[in-house]
Protein backbone atom coordinates (compact mmCIF):
# COMPACT_ATOMS: atom_id res chain seq x y z
CA UNK A 1 0.00 0.00 0.00
CA UNK A 2 1.17 3.51 -0.79
CA UNK A 3 0.12 5.41 2.32
CA UNK A 4 -1.91 8.54 1.75
CA UNK A 5 -0.11 11.74 2.59
CA UNK A 6 -1.56 14.24 4.99
CA UNK A 7 -2.48 16.51 2.08
CA UNK A 8 -4.29 13.73 0.20
CA UNK A 9 -6.12 12.76 3.36
CA UNK A 10 -7.16 16.34 4.05
CA UNK A 11 -8.90 16.39 0.70
CA UNK A 12 -11.01 13.42 1.75
CA UNK A 13 -11.93 14.40 5.32
CA UNK A 14 -14.58 16.86 6.43
CA UNK A 15 -13.74 19.85 8.63
CA UNK A 16 -14.41 18.15 11.97
CA UNK A 17 -12.35 15.10 11.03
CA UNK A 18 -9.51 17.32 9.79
CA UNK A 19 -9.44 19.21 13.08
CA UNK A 20 -9.49 15.93 14.99
CA UNK A 21 -6.60 14.66 12.89
CA UNK A 22 -4.61 17.87 13.53
CA UNK A 23 -4.88 17.29 17.26
CA UNK A 24 -4.18 13.59 16.96
CA UNK A 25 -1.04 14.11 14.91
CA UNK A 26 0.18 16.80 17.31
CA UNK A 27 -0.25 14.35 20.19
CA UNK A 28 1.58 11.65 18.29
CA UNK A 29 4.42 14.05 17.44
CA UNK A 30 4.79 15.21 21.02
CA UNK A 31 4.85 11.57 22.13
CA UNK A 32 7.68 10.94 19.67
CA UNK A 33 9.52 14.06 20.86
CA UNK A 34 9.13 13.15 24.54
CA UNK A 35 10.58 9.71 23.89
CA UNK A 36 13.73 11.11 22.36
CA UNK A 37 14.23 13.75 25.08
CA UNK A 38 16.73 12.40 27.58
CA UNK A 39 15.21 11.93 30.99
CA UNK A 40 11.63 12.50 29.85
CA UNK A 41 9.37 10.96 32.48
CA UNK A 42 7.59 7.86 31.18
CA UNK A 43 3.81 8.11 31.38
CA UNK A 44 2.29 5.91 34.09
CA UNK A 45 1.65 2.43 32.65
CA UNK A 46 -2.01 2.43 33.74
CA UNK A 47 -2.83 5.45 31.57
CA UNK A 48 -3.27 5.10 27.83
CA UNK A 49 -1.21 7.78 26.01
CA UNK A 50 -3.63 10.24 24.33
CA UNK A 51 -2.35 9.48 20.83
CA UNK A 52 -3.11 5.79 21.36
CA UNK A 53 -6.70 6.63 22.28
CA UNK A 54 -6.85 8.54 18.97
CA UNK A 55 -5.38 5.51 17.22
CA UNK A 56 -8.25 3.38 18.57
CA UNK A 57 -10.91 6.00 17.76
CA UNK A 58 -9.86 6.76 14.16
CA UNK A 59 -12.75 4.81 12.62
CA UNK A 60 -15.50 6.75 14.33
CA UNK A 61 -13.71 10.11 14.18
CA UNK A 62 -12.56 10.00 10.53
CA UNK A 63 -14.92 7.29 9.14
CA UNK A 64 -13.96 3.64 8.59
CA UNK A 65 -12.97 4.19 4.93
CA UNK A 66 -10.15 6.51 5.95
CA UNK A 67 -9.19 4.71 9.16
CA UNK A 68 -6.29 2.78 7.60
CA UNK A 69 -4.74 5.98 6.25
CA UNK A 70 -5.29 7.94 9.45
CA UNK A 71 -3.92 5.21 11.68
CA UNK A 72 -0.81 4.59 9.56
CA UNK A 73 -0.16 8.34 9.56
CA UNK A 74 -0.43 8.40 13.36
CA UNK A 75 1.98 5.49 13.74
CA UNK A 76 4.43 7.25 11.48
CA UNK A 77 4.10 10.56 13.30
CA UNK A 78 4.56 8.87 16.68
CA UNK A 79 7.59 7.06 15.26
CA UNK A 80 6.21 3.90 16.83
CA UNK A 81 8.97 1.42 17.55
CA UNK A 82 8.64 -2.36 17.41
CA UNK A 83 7.68 -2.59 21.07
CA UNK A 84 4.87 -0.09 20.60
CA UNK A 85 3.72 -1.66 17.33
CA UNK A 86 3.63 -5.07 18.98
CA UNK A 87 1.61 -3.79 21.92
CA UNK A 88 -0.83 -1.89 19.68
CA UNK A 89 -1.27 -4.97 17.52
CA UNK A 90 -1.87 -7.26 20.47
CA UNK A 91 -4.28 -4.87 22.16
CA UNK A 92 -5.92 -3.72 18.96
CA UNK A 93 -9.27 -4.44 17.35
CA UNK A 94 -8.99 -5.97 13.87
CA UNK A 95 -8.91 -2.54 12.18
CA UNK A 96 -6.05 -1.39 14.43
CA UNK A 97 -4.13 -4.58 13.72
CA UNK A 98 -4.53 -3.85 10.02
CA UNK A 99 -2.95 -0.43 10.45
CA UNK A 100 0.02 -1.89 12.32
CA UNK A 101 0.56 -4.47 9.57
CA UNK A 102 0.27 -1.83 6.85
CA UNK A 103 2.87 0.31 8.63
CA UNK A 104 5.54 -2.34 8.97
CA UNK A 105 7.39 -1.60 5.71
CA UNK A 106 7.85 2.04 6.71
CA UNK A 107 8.60 1.59 10.39
CA UNK A 108 10.53 -1.65 10.77
CA UNK A 109 13.60 -2.28 8.64
CA UNK A 110 14.49 -5.72 9.98
CA UNK A 111 12.57 -8.99 10.07
CA UNK A 112 11.88 -8.49 13.80
CA UNK A 113 8.18 -7.78 13.26
CA UNK A 114 7.54 -11.11 11.55
CA UNK A 115 5.72 -12.53 14.61
CA UNK A 116 2.95 -9.98 13.93
CA UNK A 117 2.71 -11.06 10.30
CA UNK A 118 2.68 -14.70 11.36
CA UNK A 119 -0.12 -13.98 13.81
CA UNK A 120 -2.19 -12.29 11.12
CA UNK A 121 -1.58 -15.14 8.68
CA UNK A 122 -2.83 -17.65 11.26
CA UNK A 123 -6.23 -15.92 11.32
CA UNK A 124 -9.01 -16.50 8.82
CA UNK A 125 -9.85 -12.81 8.82
CA UNK A 126 -9.33 -11.62 5.26
CA UNK A 127 -8.92 -8.02 6.41
CA UNK A 128 -5.81 -9.11 8.30
CA UNK A 129 -4.56 -11.50 5.63
CA UNK A 130 -4.59 -8.77 2.98
CA UNK A 131 -2.85 -6.28 5.26
CA UNK A 132 -0.22 -8.86 6.22
CA UNK A 133 0.78 -9.68 2.64
CA UNK A 134 2.18 -6.29 1.68
CA UNK A 135 5.81 -5.27 1.00
CA UNK A 136 6.97 -6.27 4.48
CA UNK A 137 5.95 -9.90 4.00
CA UNK A 138 7.32 -9.87 0.44
CA UNK A 139 10.69 -8.81 1.82
CA UNK A 140 10.93 -10.92 4.95
CA UNK A 141 8.63 -13.95 4.93
CA UNK A 142 10.43 -17.28 4.53
CA UNK A 143 9.51 -19.48 1.57
CA UNK A 144 7.43 -22.00 3.48
CA UNK A 145 5.31 -19.38 5.23
CA UNK A 146 4.96 -17.38 2.04
CA UNK A 147 3.68 -20.39 0.05
CA UNK A 148 1.26 -21.26 2.83
CA UNK A 149 0.02 -17.67 2.77
CA UNK A 150 -0.58 -17.79 -0.98
CA UNK A 151 -2.53 -21.01 -0.58
CA UNK A 152 -4.50 -19.51 2.29
CA UNK A 153 -5.53 -16.61 0.05
CA UNK A 154 -6.87 -19.10 -2.46
CA UNK A 155 -8.78 -20.91 0.30
CA UNK A 156 -10.28 -17.78 1.83
CA UNK A 157 -11.10 -15.99 -1.41
CA UNK A 158 -8.51 -13.24 -1.07
CA UNK A 159 -7.55 -12.16 -4.62
CA UNK A 160 -3.85 -12.78 -5.25
CA UNK A 161 -3.57 -9.15 -6.37
CA UNK A 162 -3.23 -8.45 -2.65
CA UNK A 163 -0.01 -10.44 -2.43
CA UNK A 164 2.79 -7.91 -2.92
CA UNK A 165 5.39 -8.93 -5.53
CA UNK A 166 3.56 -12.18 -6.26
CA UNK A 167 5.23 -12.56 -9.65
CA UNK A 168 8.73 -11.93 -8.30
CA UNK A 169 8.48 -14.37 -5.44
CA UNK A 170 6.53 -17.04 -7.33
CA UNK A 171 8.83 -17.16 -10.36
CA UNK A 172 10.49 -20.54 -10.67
CA UNK A 173 9.13 -21.75 -7.31
CA UNK A 174 8.75 -25.48 -8.05
CA UNK A 175 7.37 -26.23 -4.59
CA UNK A 176 4.66 -23.59 -4.97
CA UNK A 177 3.85 -25.04 -8.40
CA UNK A 178 3.47 -28.48 -6.86
CA UNK A 179 1.19 -27.17 -4.09
CA UNK A 180 -0.98 -25.31 -6.58
CA UNK A 181 -1.21 -28.35 -8.86
CA UNK A 182 -2.24 -30.54 -5.92
CA UNK A 183 -4.80 -27.96 -4.85
CA UNK A 184 -6.26 -27.80 -8.35
CA UNK A 185 -6.44 -31.62 -8.43
CA UNK A 186 -8.21 -31.67 -5.07
CA UNK A 187 -10.79 -29.13 -6.28
CA UNK A 188 -11.33 -31.03 -9.53
CA UNK A 189 -11.70 -34.38 -7.72
CA UNK A 190 -14.35 -32.80 -5.51
CA UNK A 191 -16.23 -31.50 -8.54
CA UNK A 192 -15.54 -27.91 -7.55
CA UNK A 193 -14.31 -25.17 -9.86
CA UNK A 194 -10.64 -24.21 -9.76
CA UNK A 195 -10.37 -20.47 -9.01
CA UNK A 196 -8.75 -18.54 -11.91
CA UNK A 197 -6.11 -17.24 -9.49
CA UNK A 198 -4.78 -20.81 -9.13
CA UNK A 199 -3.97 -20.98 -12.86
CA UNK A 200 -2.51 -17.52 -12.76
CA UNK A 201 -0.19 -18.31 -9.85
CA UNK A 202 0.74 -21.63 -11.39
CA UNK A 203 1.75 -19.94 -14.63
CA UNK A 204 3.96 -17.55 -12.62
CA UNK A 205 5.53 -20.38 -10.61
CA UNK A 206 6.30 -22.34 -13.75
CA UNK A 207 8.14 -19.41 -15.34
CA UNK A 208 11.89 -19.68 -15.36
Amino acid sequence: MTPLTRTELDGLLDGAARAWLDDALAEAASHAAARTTAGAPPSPPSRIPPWEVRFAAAGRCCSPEHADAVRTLLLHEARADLKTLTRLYRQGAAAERRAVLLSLPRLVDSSAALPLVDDALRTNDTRLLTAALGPYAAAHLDSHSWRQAVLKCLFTGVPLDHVHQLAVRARGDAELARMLTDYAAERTAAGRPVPPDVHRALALAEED
Partner: protein
Amino acid sequence: MRIFDPHIHMTSRTTDDYEAMYAAGVRALVEPSFWLGQPRTSPASFFDYFDALLGWEPFRAAQHGIAHHCALALNPKEANDPRCTPVLDALPRYLVKDSVVAVGEIGYDSMTPAEDTALAAQLQLAADHGLPALVHTPHRDKLAGLHRTLDVLRESALPPDRVLLDHLNETTVKPAADSGCWLGFSVYPDTKMDEDRVVAVLKTHGLARTLVNSAADWGRSDPLKTRRVGDAMLAAGFADADVDQVLWRNPVEFYGLSGRLRLDVPPPQTPGDPRGVGGPPLHEGNSILRGGE
Protein backbone atom coordinates in the same frame (compact mmCIF):
# COMPACT_ATOMS: atom_id res chain seq x y z
CA MET B 1 -39.20 -5.82 8.46
CA ARG B 2 -35.78 -4.52 9.52
CA ILE B 3 -34.55 -5.81 12.82
CA PHE B 4 -31.81 -4.75 15.25
CA ASP B 5 -31.27 -7.39 17.94
CA PRO B 6 -29.92 -5.33 20.83
CA HIS B 7 -28.77 -8.33 22.90
CA ILE B 8 -27.54 -11.59 21.41
CA HIS B 9 -24.46 -13.75 22.03
CA MET B 10 -23.37 -14.68 18.51
CA THR B 11 -20.14 -16.30 19.66
CA SER B 12 -22.36 -19.23 20.66
CA ARG B 13 -24.29 -19.35 17.38
CA THR B 14 -23.69 -20.96 14.01
CA THR B 15 -23.52 -19.63 10.46
CA ASP B 16 -26.97 -21.20 9.93
CA ASP B 17 -28.23 -18.82 12.58
CA TYR B 18 -26.64 -15.86 10.82
CA GLU B 19 -28.28 -16.88 7.54
CA ALA B 20 -31.68 -17.38 9.16
CA MET B 21 -31.39 -14.06 10.98
CA TYR B 22 -30.56 -12.22 7.77
CA ALA B 23 -33.49 -13.89 6.01
CA ALA B 24 -35.77 -12.86 8.89
CA GLY B 25 -34.72 -9.21 8.54
CA VAL B 26 -31.93 -8.86 11.10
CA ARG B 27 -29.45 -6.26 9.81
CA ALA B 28 -27.73 -5.19 13.02
CA LEU B 29 -27.03 -6.55 16.47
CA VAL B 30 -25.19 -5.86 19.68
CA GLU B 31 -23.33 -8.68 21.38
CA PRO B 32 -22.82 -7.96 25.06
CA SER B 33 -19.98 -9.78 26.77
CA PHE B 34 -21.18 -12.31 29.27
CA TRP B 35 -20.56 -15.62 31.02
CA LEU B 36 -19.56 -18.45 28.73
CA GLY B 37 -21.22 -21.24 30.70
CA GLN B 38 -17.83 -22.48 31.84
CA PRO B 39 -16.32 -20.15 34.43
CA ARG B 40 -13.10 -18.40 33.40
CA THR B 41 -10.13 -18.45 35.71
CA SER B 42 -7.92 -15.60 34.50
CA PRO B 43 -8.18 -12.13 32.94
CA ALA B 44 -6.34 -13.40 29.86
CA SER B 45 -9.28 -15.52 28.78
CA PHE B 46 -11.51 -12.44 29.03
CA PHE B 47 -9.11 -10.55 26.81
CA ASP B 48 -9.22 -13.26 24.15
CA TYR B 49 -12.99 -13.14 24.37
CA PHE B 50 -13.06 -9.34 24.04
CA ASP B 51 -10.70 -9.63 21.05
CA ALA B 52 -13.13 -12.06 19.43
CA LEU B 53 -15.99 -9.60 19.96
CA LEU B 54 -13.85 -6.87 18.34
CA GLY B 55 -12.39 -8.98 15.55
CA TRP B 56 -13.62 -12.35 14.43
CA GLU B 57 -17.31 -12.03 15.31
CA PRO B 58 -17.88 -8.73 13.43
CA PHE B 59 -16.06 -10.32 10.48
CA ARG B 60 -18.39 -13.32 10.58
CA ALA B 61 -21.47 -11.10 10.93
CA ALA B 62 -20.43 -8.88 8.00
CA GLN B 63 -20.19 -11.92 5.74
CA HIS B 64 -23.87 -12.46 6.44
CA GLY B 65 -24.86 -8.84 5.87
CA ILE B 66 -25.25 -7.98 9.55
CA ALA B 67 -23.62 -5.05 11.37
CA HIS B 68 -22.01 -6.26 14.60
CA HIS B 69 -21.24 -4.08 17.59
CA CYS B 70 -20.47 -5.12 21.12
CA ALA B 71 -20.80 -4.14 24.75
CA LEU B 72 -17.87 -5.02 26.99
CA ALA B 73 -17.73 -5.57 30.75
CA LEU B 74 -16.87 -7.94 33.54
CA ASN B 75 -20.11 -9.86 34.05
CA PRO B 76 -21.61 -9.98 37.56
CA LYS B 77 -21.27 -13.73 37.98
CA GLU B 78 -17.52 -13.72 37.43
CA ALA B 79 -17.09 -10.43 39.30
CA ASN B 80 -17.35 -12.69 42.36
CA ASP B 81 -14.12 -14.52 41.49
CA PRO B 82 -11.08 -12.52 42.65
CA ARG B 83 -9.03 -14.20 39.92
CA CYS B 84 -11.16 -12.35 37.33
CA THR B 85 -11.61 -8.90 38.88
CA PRO B 86 -8.37 -7.46 37.36
CA VAL B 87 -10.44 -7.31 34.16
CA LEU B 88 -11.92 -4.10 35.58
CA ASP B 89 -8.51 -2.42 35.40
CA ALA B 90 -8.03 -3.41 31.75
CA LEU B 91 -11.48 -2.34 30.56
CA PRO B 92 -10.50 1.28 29.78
CA ARG B 93 -8.26 0.21 26.92
CA TYR B 94 -11.09 -1.86 25.43
CA LEU B 95 -13.85 0.71 25.92
CA VAL B 96 -12.15 3.14 23.48
CA LYS B 97 -12.56 0.73 20.54
CA ASP B 98 -14.68 1.84 17.59
CA SER B 99 -17.25 -0.96 17.70
CA VAL B 100 -17.88 -0.80 21.45
CA VAL B 101 -21.27 0.90 21.83
CA ALA B 102 -21.97 0.25 25.51
CA VAL B 103 -20.66 -1.10 28.77
CA GLY B 104 -22.42 -4.39 29.40
CA GLU B 105 -23.91 -6.58 30.33
CA ILE B 106 -23.55 -5.57 33.94
CA GLY B 107 -25.96 -5.82 36.88
CA TYR B 108 -26.58 -8.40 39.57
CA ASP B 109 -26.41 -12.15 39.66
CA SER B 110 -26.43 -13.15 43.36
CA MET B 111 -26.42 -9.60 44.77
CA THR B 112 -23.10 -9.84 46.60
CA PRO B 113 -20.80 -7.03 47.79
CA ALA B 114 -18.38 -7.93 44.97
CA GLU B 115 -21.21 -7.40 42.47
CA ASP B 116 -22.03 -4.04 44.09
CA THR B 117 -18.43 -2.97 43.55
CA ALA B 118 -18.24 -4.17 39.94
CA LEU B 119 -21.58 -2.58 39.03
CA ALA B 120 -20.68 0.81 40.49
CA ALA B 121 -17.20 0.78 38.98
CA GLN B 122 -18.50 -0.09 35.52
CA LEU B 123 -21.28 2.52 35.60
CA GLN B 124 -18.51 5.03 36.28
CA LEU B 125 -16.49 3.63 33.37
CA ALA B 126 -19.52 4.08 31.10
CA ALA B 127 -19.86 7.70 32.21
CA ASP B 128 -16.13 8.32 31.74
CA HIS B 129 -16.16 6.89 28.19
CA GLY B 130 -19.35 8.53 26.96
CA LEU B 131 -21.00 5.12 26.63
CA PRO B 132 -24.47 3.96 27.62
CA ALA B 133 -24.80 0.84 29.78
CA LEU B 134 -26.68 -2.42 29.32
CA VAL B 135 -27.76 -3.46 32.80
CA HIS B 136 -29.53 -6.76 33.13
CA THR B 137 -31.84 -7.60 35.99
CA PRO B 138 -31.08 -10.85 37.84
CA HIS B 139 -32.84 -14.10 37.02
CA ARG B 140 -33.38 -14.95 40.69
CA ASP B 141 -35.08 -12.52 43.08
CA LYS B 142 -35.76 -10.21 40.15
CA LEU B 143 -37.91 -7.48 41.71
CA ALA B 144 -35.61 -7.01 44.72
CA GLY B 145 -32.69 -7.08 42.28
CA LEU B 146 -34.28 -4.36 40.19
CA HIS B 147 -34.74 -2.09 43.21
CA ARG B 148 -31.16 -2.62 44.32
CA THR B 149 -30.01 -1.90 40.75
CA LEU B 150 -32.02 1.34 40.67
CA ASP B 151 -30.46 2.40 44.00
CA VAL B 152 -26.95 1.94 42.58
CA LEU B 153 -27.94 3.76 39.36
CA ARG B 154 -29.22 6.76 41.32
CA GLU B 155 -25.85 7.07 43.03
CA SER B 156 -23.93 6.72 39.77
CA ALA B 157 -22.71 9.38 37.33
CA LEU B 158 -24.73 7.79 34.51
CA PRO B 159 -28.15 9.37 33.89
CA PRO B 160 -31.07 6.93 33.49
CA ASP B 161 -31.62 7.89 29.85
CA ARG B 162 -28.24 6.26 29.11
CA VAL B 163 -29.16 2.96 30.78
CA LEU B 164 -30.99 -0.02 29.28
CA LEU B 165 -32.54 -2.28 31.90
CA ASP B 166 -32.86 -5.74 30.43
CA HIS B 167 -34.65 -9.05 31.06
CA LEU B 168 -37.68 -7.14 32.35
CA ASN B 169 -41.07 -8.77 32.81
CA GLU B 170 -44.61 -7.93 33.97
CA THR B 171 -43.54 -7.53 37.59
CA THR B 172 -40.60 -5.24 36.95
CA VAL B 173 -41.69 -3.10 33.99
CA LYS B 174 -43.51 -0.46 36.07
CA PRO B 175 -40.68 0.53 38.44
CA ALA B 176 -38.21 0.25 35.55
CA ALA B 177 -40.30 2.59 33.39
CA ASP B 178 -40.70 5.05 36.28
CA SER B 179 -36.91 5.22 36.64
CA GLY B 180 -36.51 6.86 33.23
CA CYS B 181 -34.29 4.05 31.93
CA TRP B 182 -34.72 2.29 28.61
CA LEU B 183 -36.65 -0.98 28.85
CA GLY B 184 -35.44 -4.29 27.43
CA PHE B 185 -37.43 -7.48 27.06
CA SER B 186 -35.69 -10.76 26.34
CA VAL B 187 -37.80 -13.32 24.54
CA TYR B 188 -36.59 -16.78 25.43
CA PRO B 189 -38.31 -20.12 24.79
CA ASP B 190 -38.74 -21.36 28.39
CA THR B 191 -37.63 -18.64 30.75
CA LYS B 192 -37.84 -14.85 30.52
CA MET B 193 -40.67 -13.52 28.27
CA ASP B 194 -42.55 -15.00 25.32
CA GLU B 195 -43.70 -12.98 22.32
CA ASP B 196 -47.38 -12.73 23.29
CA ARG B 197 -46.55 -11.52 26.78
CA VAL B 198 -44.24 -8.89 25.28
CA VAL B 199 -47.01 -7.70 22.98
CA ALA B 200 -49.35 -7.44 25.98
CA VAL B 201 -46.78 -5.32 27.83
CA LEU B 202 -46.31 -3.11 24.75
CA LYS B 203 -50.06 -2.53 24.64
CA THR B 204 -50.09 -1.45 28.29
CA HIS B 205 -46.86 0.51 28.53
CA GLY B 206 -46.45 1.83 24.99
CA LEU B 207 -43.48 1.66 22.68
CA ALA B 208 -41.33 4.51 23.91
CA ARG B 209 -37.81 3.56 25.05
CA THR B 210 -38.72 -0.11 24.63
CA LEU B 211 -36.42 -2.72 23.04
CA VAL B 212 -36.92 -6.41 22.37
CA ASN B 213 -34.10 -8.94 22.11
CA SER B 214 -33.57 -12.67 21.73
CA ALA B 215 -30.71 -12.85 24.26
CA ALA B 216 -29.84 -16.01 22.32
CA ASP B 217 -26.73 -17.73 23.63
CA TRP B 218 -25.50 -21.26 24.33
CA GLY B 219 -28.69 -22.12 26.22
CA ARG B 220 -31.97 -23.24 24.70
CA SER B 221 -32.78 -20.01 22.89
CA ASP B 222 -33.91 -18.73 19.52
CA PRO B 223 -32.16 -15.97 17.53
CA LEU B 224 -35.37 -15.40 15.51
CA LYS B 225 -37.46 -14.36 18.53
CA THR B 226 -37.16 -10.70 17.54
CA ARG B 227 -38.90 -11.50 14.26
CA ARG B 228 -41.57 -13.52 16.12
CA VAL B 229 -42.31 -10.44 18.24
CA GLY B 230 -42.62 -8.31 15.10
CA ASP B 231 -45.07 -10.81 13.62
CA ALA B 232 -47.01 -11.01 16.90
CA MET B 233 -47.21 -7.20 17.04
CA LEU B 234 -48.65 -7.05 13.51
CA ALA B 235 -51.11 -9.84 14.33
CA ALA B 236 -52.20 -7.87 17.41
CA GLY B 237 -52.97 -4.80 15.29
CA PHE B 238 -49.79 -2.75 15.63
CA ALA B 239 -48.73 -0.86 12.49
CA ASP B 240 -45.53 -1.46 10.50
CA ALA B 241 -44.17 1.81 11.89
CA ASP B 242 -44.73 0.56 15.45
CA VAL B 243 -42.80 -2.61 14.72
CA ASP B 244 -40.03 -0.54 13.16
CA GLN B 245 -39.85 1.64 16.23
CA VAL B 246 -39.43 -1.27 18.64
CA LEU B 247 -37.26 -3.50 16.47
CA TRP B 248 -35.11 -0.86 14.76
CA ARG B 249 -35.42 2.81 15.69
CA ASN B 250 -35.34 2.37 19.48
CA PRO B 251 -32.18 0.23 19.55
CA VAL B 252 -30.55 2.55 17.00
CA GLU B 253 -31.37 5.52 19.22
CA PHE B 254 -30.16 3.85 22.40
CA TYR B 255 -26.85 2.52 21.12
CA GLY B 256 -26.49 5.63 18.97
CA LEU B 257 -25.89 7.46 22.27
CA SER B 258 -22.34 6.10 21.95
CA GLY B 259 -21.77 8.00 18.70
CA ARG B 260 -20.14 4.83 17.36
CA LEU B 261 -22.93 2.98 15.55
CA ARG B 262 -22.18 2.09 11.90
CA LEU B 263 -25.07 0.39 10.15
CA ASP B 264 -23.86 0.42 6.52
CA VAL B 265 -23.08 -3.25 5.98
CA PRO B 266 -23.78 -4.41 2.41
CA PRO B 267 -25.77 -7.57 1.64
CA PRO B 268 -23.99 -10.91 1.95
CA GLN B 269 -22.21 -12.47 -1.00
CA THR B 270 -24.36 -14.82 -2.99
CA PRO B 271 -23.21 -18.41 -3.55
CA GLY B 272 -21.07 -18.60 -6.67
CA ASP B 273 -19.61 -15.17 -6.06
CA PRO B 274 -16.02 -15.37 -7.31
CA ARG B 275 -14.79 -14.02 -3.99
CA GLY B 276 -16.14 -17.23 -2.47
CA VAL B 277 -17.33 -17.78 1.06
CA GLY B 278 -14.83 -16.15 3.38
CA GLY B 279 -13.89 -13.49 0.89
CA PRO B 280 -13.16 -9.97 1.99
CA PRO B 281 -16.25 -8.35 3.44
CA LEU B 282 -17.43 -5.48 1.31
CA HIS B 283 -17.90 -3.16 4.27
CA GLU B 284 -14.17 -2.60 4.30
CA GLY B 285 -13.92 -3.12 0.60
CA ASN B 286 -12.31 0.21 -0.17
CA SER B 287 -9.55 -0.13 2.35
CA ILE B 288 -8.93 -3.73 1.37
CA LEU B 289 -8.62 -2.83 -2.27
CA ARG B 290 -6.19 -0.09 -1.33
CA GLY B 291 -4.38 -2.44 1.02
CA GLY B 292 -2.70 -4.65 -1.55
CA GLU B 293 -0.04 -2.63 -3.26
